[in-house]
C-alpha cells in the first residue's frame, strides 16, 4: 500500500512539475528580440578586429597555421571494388566532405563572434583531448566566446545524450568530435534538424554526415601517413618488409594509419612488402609482445614498423627492438606526444607526424568564429602536415601532452 501511494505521489509530482518546467524557459528568449541593429554591427567590427595570429601553443608553435591544400582526385565508379592496396579503394573515407551537398545549413548571422555560445562535445577523456580542449578554450577566449566542453568518455550512448543536452541549451554553434565516422551521420543530422549550426572536428565523418555540417577540421590522417610513408621509403631505399601496429578498431584511424602508408608504398615503392598487421591496443606490453613475436617470425625480413600511436605503442616497439638488438629496424608513428618526441630525440623512433592537439581544438573554434563573422568557410580544413624527425624535434618541445 505504502509502495503504491509512493509511486502515485512520484508520478504526480513529476507531472505537476513538468508543466511548471515547460512554462519556465519562455521568458529567457525575450531579450534577444530587442537587440537592435547597431550593436550587431559593432560586435562584428570588434570581432573582425581580433588578431589571433599571435596565439601560440604550449609547444611554442603558432596555434593557427595557414591551411594546406589537398588535391582531390575524381571518385572512381565503385571504390569498394578496387583492391585494398589501391588508394582509391579508400576514396570515400579519405575524401569525405569535399563533395558533399550541404542540406539545410543555417545562414550565418554575420554579427560577430564575440559573446557567442558554443558547445564542444569531444569523444572521450584522453590527454590528447585535454590538450585539444585547452586549444579550443584559448581561441574561444581570444574571441570572447562562451565555450562549454562536454566529454562522454567514449560512450556513444552518452554522447548522443550530450548532443540532445547541447541542443536543449540552444547554443549558437555545436562543435562535435564524433566517436565514430558512421554513427556521426545521425548525430549531425539531429543537430542539423534542430536548426543549430554545427562543425565536425578531429574525426572525419562519412560523406553522408558532411551534408549536415558547415565544415570539418582536423588532421589529414591519410595525407600525414602518406608523408610518413614517403619518408620511410626513402630511409629504407624502397626495400624491405613492413609490419603495422594498428589503431583500435572502430574508427577511421584504424584504416587511415594502416592503409595510408600501405597504398602509398604500393605506389612509390612496390618492392616493399606488407608482413603483418595487428591491433594490440594502446598497451606497451602487448605491443612489445607482438613486435617480439614478429622479430622471431620474420627475422631480417622485417625492416620497418609503422605504428598508429607514438606513446605506448612506440614504447612497446622500442623495447622489443632493443631486446632483440635490432637497430636496423625503422619505426614510424603518428602523434606528437611528449613520449613520442622523446622517442624521436632518443633515436627510438625515426619520425612521427606533427599533429598539434591544441590546434586541432582551436581550428574548429576559429571556423566557428569565421562563420559568425560572415566569412566564407571551406568545407574541409586540414591541420598542417609535417613529419617530425630528430633534426627538428626541438622546435616542437615542450610537448602539448
Amino acid at each position, binding site marked *: 500500500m505504502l509502495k503504491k501511494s509512493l509511486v502515485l505521489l512520484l508520478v504526480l509530482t513529476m507531472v505537476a512539475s513538468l508543466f511548471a518546467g515547460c512554462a519556465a524557459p519562455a521568458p529567457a528568449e525575450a531579450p534577444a528580440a530587442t537587440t537592435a541593429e547597431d550593436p550587431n554591427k559593432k560586435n562584428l567590427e570588434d570581432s573582425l578586429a581580433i588578431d589571433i595570429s599571435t596565439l601560440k601553443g604550449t609547444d611554442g608553435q603558432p596555434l593557427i597555421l595557414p591551411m594546406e591544400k589537398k588535391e582531390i582526385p575524381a571518385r572512381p565508379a565503385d571504390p569498394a571494388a578496387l583492391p585494398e592496396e589501391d588508394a582509391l579503394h579508400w576514396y570515400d573515407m579519405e575524401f569525405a566532405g569535399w563533395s558533399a551537398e550541404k542540406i539545410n545549413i543555417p545562414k550565418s548571422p554575420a554579427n560577430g563572434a564575440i559573446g557567442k555560445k558554443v558547445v564542444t562535445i569531444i569523444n572521450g577523456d584522453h590527454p590528447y583531448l585535454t590538450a585539444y580542449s585547452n586549444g579550443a578554450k584559448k581561441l574561444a577566449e581570444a574571441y570572447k566566446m562562451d565555450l562549454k566542453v562536454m566529454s562522454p568518455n567514449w560512450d556513444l*550512448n552518452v554522447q548522443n545524450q550530450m548532443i540532445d543536452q547541447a541542443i536543449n541549451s540552444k547554443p549558437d554553434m555545436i562543435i562535435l568530435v564524433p566517436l565514430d565516422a*558512421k*554513427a556521426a551521420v545521425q548525430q549531425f543530422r539531429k543537430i542539423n534538424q534542430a536548426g543549430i549550426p554545427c562543425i565536425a572536428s578531429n574525426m572525419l565523418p562519412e560523406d553522408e554526415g558532411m551534408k549536415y555540417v558547415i565544415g570539418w577540421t582536423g588532421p589529414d590522417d591519410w595525407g600525414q601517413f602518406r608523408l610518413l610513408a614517403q619518408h620511410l621509403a626513402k630511409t629504407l631505399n624502397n626495400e624491405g618488409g613492413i609490419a603495422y601496429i594498428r589503431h583500435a578498431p572502430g574508427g577511421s584511424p584504424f584504416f587511415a594509419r594502416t592503409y595510408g602508408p600501405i597504398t602509398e608504398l604500393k605506389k612509390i615503392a612496390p618492392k616493399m612488402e606488407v608482413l603483418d598487421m595487428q591491433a594490440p591496443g594502446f598497451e606497451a606490453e602487448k605491443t612489445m609482445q607482438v613486435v617480439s613475436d614478429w622479430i622471431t617470425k620474420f627475422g631480417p625480413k622485417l625492416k620497418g614498423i609503422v605504428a598508429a600511436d607514438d606513446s605506448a605503442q612506440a614504447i612497446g616497439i622500442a623495447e622489443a627492438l632493443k631486446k632483440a638488438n635490432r637497430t636496423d629496424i625503422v619505426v614510424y608513428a603518428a602523434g606528437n606526444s611528449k613520449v613520442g618526441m622523446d622517442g624521436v630525440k632518443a633515436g627510438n623512433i625515426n619520425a612521427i607526424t606533427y599533429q598539434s592537439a591544441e590546434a586541432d581544438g582551436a581550428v574548429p573554434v576559429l571556423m566557428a568564429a569565421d562563420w559568425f563573422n560572415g566569412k566564407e568557410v571551406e568545407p574541409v580544413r586540414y591541420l598542417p602536415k609535417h613529419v617530425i624527425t630528430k633534426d627538428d624535434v626541438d622546435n616542437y618541445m615542450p610537448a602539448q601532452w
Partner: protein
Amino acid sequence: MLNIIRSKNISKWIDNNRIYLIFIVVFLLATAFAPNFFNLFNLTNILRGASLGMMVAIGFTIVMICGHMDLSVASTLNLGAILVIGMQPRFGWTVSLIAAVLAGGIVGIINGLLVAKAKIHSFIVTLGTMTIVQGIIYMYSHGSSINVTDFALADWIDKAVIPLLPPRVLITVIAVALFEVFLTRTPYGKGFYMVGGNKETAWLAGFNTDRYLINAFTISALMAALGGALFSISISSAVPNMGEKGVSPLMIVLAATIIGGTSMAGGKGSIVKSAVAVIALGTLFNGLNCFGTGYEVQIFASGLVLAIVVLYEAFALYKQDRLRGQRPELLKELEDGRFKKI
C-alpha cells in the same frame, strides 16, 4: 516495544524501496539546481539514454536472481547492434532485427548450456564468451563501424510522439513491465527466484533447474541484443566496440542492478527496480552534466552512490546476523530496567 517494531518496519520499508528514494533525491536535486534540466526535452533525453541500459538490465537482473552473472551482455549488445545494421540493406528491417536478436539468443543458449550442463562458473563462462563474441563482431565488421542510409526508422523510433515516451523508450518500458509481471506474477517466473534462492530445493521440488538457467541466460542475451539493435537503429549505424573504452554498459548495468536491490547471491531482485536504478544513474549523469562538470565528477558521484549502497547492505546484513534469534521477552526484560541499557 512499539517503538522497536515501528523503527524496524520503517527501516525495512526504506530498505525495500531505497531505489525510489535515491531516484527522487537525485531527481529533486537536479530539478532544483541544474540549469536546463527540468523540461520535457531533457527528461525525454534521459529516458532515451537510459533505455539501452534498461533493456540490458532486464535479462541481467534475471540472471542475477538465479544467482549468476552475465559479463557477456556488452558484447551481445554489440552483436545485436552490428547485425541489425549489417543485414538491413539485404534483408530489410524486420528480418534483420529478428535475426540480430536471435543471434544474441544463441550466445545466451551457449552461456546457459555451459553454466547449467558443463557446470562451469558463470563468471568464467561469460568472461570467455565476452571475448569470443567481441572477436566475432570484429571479424564480421572488419573492425569498422557500419551504417545504413535509411533514416526513416531511426527518426520514428526516437521521436517523442507521446510526451516522454518515444517508441524506443516505450518498447523498453513495455518490456520491463512485461518481464516484471512475468517474473513476479506467474508461477514460471517465480521459479527463477526459487532456483536462485536454493537450487537444490528447486530441483527437488521438480523444477528443471538447468532449463531455468538456460532460459535466464537466453533472456539476458536476447534482451541485450534487442537493446543493442534498437540503439543502433536509432543512430542508423553500429559501432563494433561500444563499451570497450571508458565505462562499459556492463558496469553501468551491474552497478544499477545492485543499487536497485538485486542480490548477487540470488533469489532476490526486481526488474523494475533495476530499470529505475538505470534511470537514476542517467539522471545523475545528466544533472551533473547540466552543471558543466566533467566526466570525472559524474563517475565519482555514481561510484559514491554504489559504494554507499554496498556499505549499507553490508551493514544491514551484519545487523540482521547479530540480531537473529533474539528473544523478545528478554528484550522486554532489558526495557524494564533489570539490566543496564545497551
